[in-house]
C-alpha cells in the first residue's frame, strides 16, 4: 500500500503547514550569504572553464584540463544552471542569475528545460503520463507502466541515456516516442519543434568540437577528445545523480488520479515519497548540485540549494513524526537499488497497471484550471 493512504486529511494539512513554515523561515533569511555563495561558485566555475580549456591545449597538462573542464561543466549545469533556472536566486534581482535569462552550457535550451523540468517534472513529480522524467518515454521505471516488448532493452537504453544525456534532455520535449512508437505525432510537427533545439545544439557542438579544437591548431585532436571526455563525464554524472533522486526501489510512482483535488499538503507528501537522497560530504553535495538532497529540493525547488543541508534535519524530523519514509543511503546503495529496478522492470511484472489512489482532499484544491 502506498504511504499516501496512511494519512488523514488533517495530517496532510498539518504537514503542509509545517513545510510552509520551514520555507517561510528560509525565505525571510535570504540575503548576502546566499548571494556571495552563488557568485563565488560562478566565479570558480568560470575560472575552471577558462583554465581547463587552456590546459587542454598543452599536452602535459591535458589530463588536468579535461578534469577542470569536466568539473566546470558539472558545476555549470548542476549547482549553478539547474538551481538558477529554478528561480532559486530570482529574489536577488540580478539579471545574470535570473531564471528568465540564464542559459547553461548544455545542448538543452533553457526554455525547454524549464518546461519539462520545472513545470512537468516538479509539479507532477512521479505521476505517470504527466512526469516525462519517469523513463523519458524510453524506459520502464514503474510497475504501473504497462510492459511492452521494447522494454526488454531497458538496461542498454539506460546506458545510452547516461552517455548522451545532454542530447536526450535536449530533445525530451519532442516526446519522440509519440512519433516513433505511438504515432500520435506527425513528422512535420516534430520538425517544427526541433528547430529551436537544433539552434542551441549547433552552437554547443560548434563551440566544443569545432571552434576550440581549431583554436588549438596542431593540438586540435587533443582538444576535441578532451571536450568529448568532459561532456561525457558531465552526462554520466548528471544522469546518475538524477536517477538516484527518483528511481531507487522504494521511491513511489503515482497514478494520475492522485492529482484530483490535490492540496498543498498532498503535494508536499507526494514530493517526499517520490524522491530519495544520498549522503556525502560537502564536495559531493556541491558536485551534485545539492540534488543529493533531492527530497528537500522537491519540497522547496526554489529555495537556494545550499540551504538544503541546513533544513534536512527538520524535514527528517517531520517525516518521523508522521511515520513517513525518508529515503536515503550512500551514493553506491542508491545506484545499485536504481539499477536493480531497471533490471527488474525490463521484464513483465505481475501487478502492472494496477493501483488507483483515492483522493482524500477536503481542503481547497491547489491548482485551479487554466
Amino acid at each position: 500500500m502506498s504511504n499516501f493512504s496512511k494519512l488523514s486529511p488533517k495530517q496532510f494539512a498539518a504537514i503542509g503547514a509545517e513545510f510552509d513554515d520551514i520555507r517561510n523561515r528560509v525565505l525571510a533569511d535570504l540575503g548576502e550569504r546566499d548571494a556571495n555563495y552563488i557568485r563565488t561558485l560562478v566565479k570558480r566555475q568560470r575560472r575552471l572553464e577558462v583554465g581547463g580549456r587552456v590546459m587542454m591545449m598543452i599536452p602535459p597538462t591535458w589530463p588536468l584540463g579535461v578534469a577542470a573542464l569536466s568539473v566546470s561543466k558539472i558545476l555549470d549545469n548542476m549547482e549553478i544552471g539547474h538551481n538558477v533556472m529554478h528561480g532559486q536566486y530570482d529574489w536577488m534581482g540580478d539579471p545574470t542569475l535570473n531564471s528568465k535569462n540564464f542559459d547553461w552550457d548544455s545542448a538543452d535550451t533553457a526554455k525547454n528545460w524549464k518546461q519539462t523540468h520545472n513545470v512537468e517534472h516538479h509539479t507532477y513529480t512521479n505521476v505517470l503520463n504527466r512526469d516525462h522524467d519517469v523513463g523519458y518515454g524510453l524506459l520502464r521505471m514503474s510497475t504501473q507502466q504497462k510492459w511492452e516488448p521494447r522494454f526488454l532493452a531497458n538496461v542498454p537504453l539506460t546506458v545510452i541515456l547516461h552517455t548522451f544525456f545532454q542530447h536526450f534532455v535536449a530533445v525530451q520535449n519532442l516526446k519522440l516516442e509519440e512519433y516513433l512508437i505511438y504515432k500520435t505525432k506527425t513528422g512535420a510537427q516534430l520538425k517544427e519543434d526541433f528547430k529551436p533545439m537544433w539552434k542551441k545544439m549547433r552552437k554547443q557542438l560548434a563551440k566544443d568540437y569545432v571552434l576550440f579544437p581549431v583554436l588549438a591548431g596542431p593540438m586540435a585532436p587533443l582538444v576535441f577528445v578532451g571536450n568529448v571526455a568532459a561532456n561525457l563525464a558531465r552526462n554520466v554524472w548528471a544522469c546518475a545523480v538524477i536517477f538516484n533522486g527518483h528511481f531507487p526501489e522504494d521511491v513511489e510512482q503515482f497514478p494520475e488520479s492522485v492529482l484530483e483535488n490535490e492540496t498543498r499538503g498532498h503535494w508536499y507528501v507526494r514530493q517526499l515519497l517520490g524522491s530519495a537522497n544520498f549522503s556525502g560530504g560537502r564536495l559531493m553535495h556541491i558536485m551534485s548540485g545539492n540534488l543529493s538532497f533531492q527530497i528537500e529540493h522537491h519540497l522547496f525547488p526554489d529555495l537556494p540549494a545550499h540551504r538544503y543541508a541546513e533544513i534536512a534535519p527538520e524535514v527528517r524530523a517531520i517525516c518521523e513524526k508522521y511515520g513517513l519514509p525518508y529515503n536515503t543511503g550512500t551514493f553506491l546503495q542508491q545506484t545499485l537499488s536504481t539499477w536493480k529496478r531497471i533490471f527488474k522492470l525490463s521484464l513483465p511484472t505481475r501487478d502492472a497497471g494496477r493501483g488507483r489512489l483515492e483522493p482524500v482532499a477536503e481542503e481547497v484544491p491547489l491548482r485551479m484550471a487554466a
Partner: protein
Amino acid sequence: MIATSPNTRFLSTGLRRVLGSRVVAAMTTPHGVDRYLELFDPTWSVNEVRAEITAVSHPTADSVTLILRPNGNWQGFRAGQFVRLTVEIDGVRRTRCYSPANSVHAADGKIEVTAKAHAGGFVSRFLREQARPGMVVTLSQADGSFALPEQRPGRVLLISGGSGITPVMAMLRTLCDEGHAGRITFLHYCNAAKDLIYAEELAEIAARYPNVELLRGFAAVEQCGELQGLFNREQLVTAVPDYAEASTFLCGPPGMMKAVQQLWVEDGIAERLHLENFTAAPVVVDSANAEGDVRFARSERLAANNGASLLDQAEAAGLRPEAGCRMGICHTCTCRKLSGRVRDTRTGQLGEEGEEDIQICVSVPVGTVTLDV
C-alpha cells in the same frame, strides 16, 4: 571599454572590437563575454554601464554625494536627465533614479550624484550610510526629457526644492562652463541654511558670474535667505519680475511643484515650464478588499482589481501570460511589476513598492498594480 583616458582609448577600442566579435561570442556561448570579463575587473563589460565610486562626501547631515567613474559604455548625459542606479543591499539589487548634478563638460568624465536620505528610504539610507570608495554600482544610460535644450534658451529660471536641486545644479554648472551670456536665476527652497546641499558652490558661482542670481528661500522663519517662506505669487513677482519670459526648469517636492505649476498655468505660460518629478511613492494602504486597477502596460489593457491572483486576472482580461504550475514553484509566470504592491498568497507577505520581478500566479494586487505584460 575600461578606462576613458585618451592614451588607453586606442587599445580599448581595439580590444572592444575583438571582444564584441562573433568568434568571441561563439566561444563564450551561452553565457556571453561579460561573464568572463568580470573575472578580471568588476567594472569591465562590453555592454553594461558600471561605475566605481571614487569619492563619498556628506554635504549635509542627511545627504550623500558620490563621485562615480563610469566605464567606457557610458554615453554621457544632457544636463537635467537622470540615470537608474542599481546597488546591491543584502544580496538584493535595488534600482532608483538619480539625476547627475555635475556639468556635462566635466573634464574627468566622472558623474556626481547627490542623494537625500529619506527616513524610511531603503536605497537613499544605504547610500548615505554604506557607500564607500571602491564600490561598484550599475547604471543605465541617461534618460528623461527634462534637460537643457540643445539650443540654449537666453533667459533661464531654475526653481528647485530640497533634493530636487540636483538636475538644476547640472544645468547651472553646464551653462556656467559654457560661458552662457543670458541671465540665470537660481531659485531654491529648503528648510534651513544647513540643509542647502550645494551652499558654498552656489555662493561662489553667484559671486563669480554677474549674470547668475541666487535666491534662497528658507522655510524656518529665523533663517534669513533672500526670500521668506514658501513659494507664492507675490514673492515671485517681486524677486523675478520677468519670470514669464524665462525658460523655467522646476524640480522639487510635490507640494511646491504643484504651487509653481498652478501659477504658470494661470498665467497661460505652461509651455515655458519644464519639470521633473522625483515622485516619493505614495504609501499604499493595505486593505483586505480588492481596490484599484490592474494595468497591463505592454498590452495596454486595464481591469478593475477583483482580488484574484494576477495570473487569473490577466487571463480574465483576455491575456495569455506564460504559466506552468500555477502554484508558485516553477517560476514560468515571473514577470516584471512596474509599480504597485502585491501580496504573496503563500506567505501572506506584502511586497515592496516599485519595480521588481514577481510570480503572478501567487501574487494578488494590493491597490493599483502595473505589470509589464
